[in-house]
């Protein structure tokens, strides 16, 4: 059996079990309140310079930066294809998983100075899911895209009632057992479990009185 053991890592290593992020997104999010409850969030996702160059390639006229109008088809395609991925946004309302309704008010802008593209869109919570305690994370479970909250003030509360608190937390480091599981998943090529993306993502918590 020695030979089988010898070949195992070799063959499994070569499986297309995924790789590493190719796109980095810097996130700022506005949490929008209606009648004292969280009713919607508006995302602003700024892509890294390389992906920005790709997604806006040849869209500007005569070598100029692309306009928001020229980028609208890109925004449209992105929003449509994001549906299947749950917009990479995973909200919890009062401790339970919640879902967003169809996004609206979407567009893409291009920053001529940084040469970066930003996707903007708003997602409403259903009436029933509106609440005073709201937690969300943004991550790509397949880790092709690396999401990170922007430095500074990445989450803002709009029309929030008095006394609401906001905290944005970095993920806690994995404990030994979890890190081991991830290493094993690397060598087996199998997923370590779907909750790992969540454990490793930044988290924003909004709590209102």
């Amino acid at each position: 059996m020695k030979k089988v053991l010898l070949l195992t890592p070799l063959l499994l290593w070569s499986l297309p079990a995924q790789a590493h992020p190719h796109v980095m997104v810097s996130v700022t999010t506005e949490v929008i309140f209606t009648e004292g409850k969280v009713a919607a969030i508006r995302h602003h996702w700024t892509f890294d310079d390389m992906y920005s160059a790709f997604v806006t390639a040849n869209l500007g006229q005569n070598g100029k930066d692309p306009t928001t109008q020229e980028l609208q088809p890109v925004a449209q395609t992105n929003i449509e294809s994001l549906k299947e991925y749950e917009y990479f946004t995973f909200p919890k309302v009062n401790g339970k998983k919640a879902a967003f309704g169809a996004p609206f008010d979407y567009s893409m802008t291009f920053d001529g100075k940084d040469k970066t593209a930003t996707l903007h869109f708003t997602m409403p919570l259903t009436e029933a899911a509106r609440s005073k305690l709201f937690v969300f994370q943004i991550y790509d479970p397949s880790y092709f895209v690396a999401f990170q909250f922007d430095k500074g003030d990445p989450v803002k509360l709009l029309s929030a009632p008095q006394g609401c608190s906001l905290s944005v937390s970095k993920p806690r480091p994995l404990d030994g057992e979890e890190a081991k599981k991830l290493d094993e998943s690397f060598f087996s090529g199998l997923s370590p479990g779907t909750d790992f993306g969540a454990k490793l993502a930044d988290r924003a918590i909004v709590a209102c009185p």
Partner: protein
Amino acid sequence: MMTRATARRAAFLAGVLALVCCAGAALAQGVGHNPFSVGVSEGGGQYGGVLGWLMSQQMEFERQISGAVRAIRTTGAGFWTLSGLSFAYGVFHAAGPGHGKAVVAAYMIANERALKRGLVISGLASLLQGLVAIAIVGVLAVLLSATAQRMRDAAEWVEIASFAGIASFGAVLAFRKGRALFAALRPPPPASRFVCEAADADGSHEHGPNCGHFHMPDPSTLGKKTFSWRDAALTVITAGSRPCSGAILVLVFSMAQGIFWAGVAATFAMALGTAITTGALATMAVLAKDLALRLTGGGARRGEIIGRALEFAAACLVLALGLALLLGYTLAGI
């Protein structure tokens, strides 16, 4: 009669088959397209530990590569920085799992024992991968002013074709290797064996009708006689025709900065790095096969059966890989 050696062989074969099965299961996860993909299916696994380290290296490289391209544009310096970074990126990028390496490794196990040829095949596959990326971005984006959507479509088309190529190549290999395994499992006809060996003394492997057409090379020559340029070329094409996202991104970014040539240079440096890692994998495949044959050896016939079984399993792996990748597409609704 179940001797210890037979039991060991059976266990070994069972192990190989189990490997193929679990490979298939792992692959069946499929490969949907990420909304922000550049047209080729490269997802991420999860990170942390070894993989996390590789990933953090990768992200750092991408940041530094885009910085180096900017530096070339603004200061004119930084060409060697860009080349060095891209080379390292290629090494690390290829250190992650990928189907191209699976094809090369399986091909090496199925066919090859000559290390040098394996290294050449790895190198050519990596070079081809770079050239395809340059062709897609160079022709579509630079010459035809295509948008990201059209580049994505083109990359996707190339990818589907390459997956279909892997499946077909795997099917042909599996058929051929399955037949060879079947032939090896049949008991040798002793009377005609000498006729064959006598006729085959010059190594031309031509023999008369008395031979019964039974092939049984010594394990030490296994693979050598079956070398075919066509298979090697197919391996290069199936393993290397799918461009990598990193190369496409750096090419488009360089184009946007007005220095497309820098992206081309970076892509070649990446290909060189990829070639080194893939070459190391090919070497591992050859050594592993050698070792497996030596450990289970002791008798030409048994060695042959084990060798053939191993080759057959590797061929099945290529077939399963191709089918799973194609299936991923079907499931993703493309």
